[in-house]
């Protein structure tokens, strides 16, 4: 069980984290629009997260904090 926090308003919606997640848990939340005008990244089911931080490693904008 891990905790993944997104600085939603810093996210540029590039989606690199989406492809990086080995479990396919991250999505761009199409229904949301952040301050920059992007659909930000978010996690679908945090309970399945293994806390590998692959998403954070591929994020160019330090949007993601991972705790385990």
């Amino acid at each position, binding site marked *: 069980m891990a905790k993944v926090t997104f600085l939603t308003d810093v996210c540029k919606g*590039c989606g690199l984290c989406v492809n990086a997640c080995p479990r396919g848990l991250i999505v761009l939340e199409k229904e949301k629009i952040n301050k920059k005008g992007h659909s930000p990244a978010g996690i679908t089911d945090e309970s399945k997260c293994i806390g590998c931080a692959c998403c954070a490693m591929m994020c160019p904008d*330090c949007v993601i904090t991972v705790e385990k």
Partner: protein
Amino acid sequence: MAVVFSKPKALTDAPLHYCPGCTHGIIHRLVAEAIDDLDILGKTVGVAPVGCAVMAYDYFSCDMVEAAHGRAPAVATGLKRAMPDRIIFTYQGDGDLASIGMAETVHAATRNENITVIFVNNAIYGMTGGQMAPTSLPGQVTQTSPYGRDVKTVGYPIKVCELLSGLDAPYYIERVAVNSVKNVTRAKKAIRRAFENQIEGKGFSLIEVISSCPTNWGMTPQKALDWVESDMIPYYPLGVYRDKSAKEAE
């Protein structure tokens, strides 16, 4: 719960101006992580280039100098000679380092200047809107090579690591990429190594990082990373090109 991953202290809170999916952000973070890990933030001075990373001086929380286009290794030389006990790094793109600043690069390398050079190669001039770079691939379409880079008229891309490893002096030269988790992990190690070398007084370390430019390549961020894998890396093989520590160990 312990923090597994968060923003390094060597980065300021300023939001990066880079385009969505531009891997400059990842490379900035890797440099900052190395500075944090080695606990050298208070004695590090960075030199920013001209190009997309021109505003790196706002992003790193160490002291920073903005250099003229291509001159970062000369500026870093001045800084290091003035303050041998400080850690000096440059952060430069391909136009900056391999075109207009080639003389500064080669000569800092051949002096084995005790500095760390982070060389970001994305095969294009990003800041000015996508012109051909010294590292643009043969056939690559850019604003100033609209029919593809014609090697017969404009020559071949410059392979910086290969070129510099022809010199006797430089201590450490490695090429890495940031297109996958695996490669980011490797890049992180290389960058850290380049700073360690300087701390130990070993001399010139250059890490070439193959980066992406989704905007000017005209690709989605993920497609751009795929192109790094399929086209860039075969032309610019990853690996260690110079490691004098191996010789020292003998």
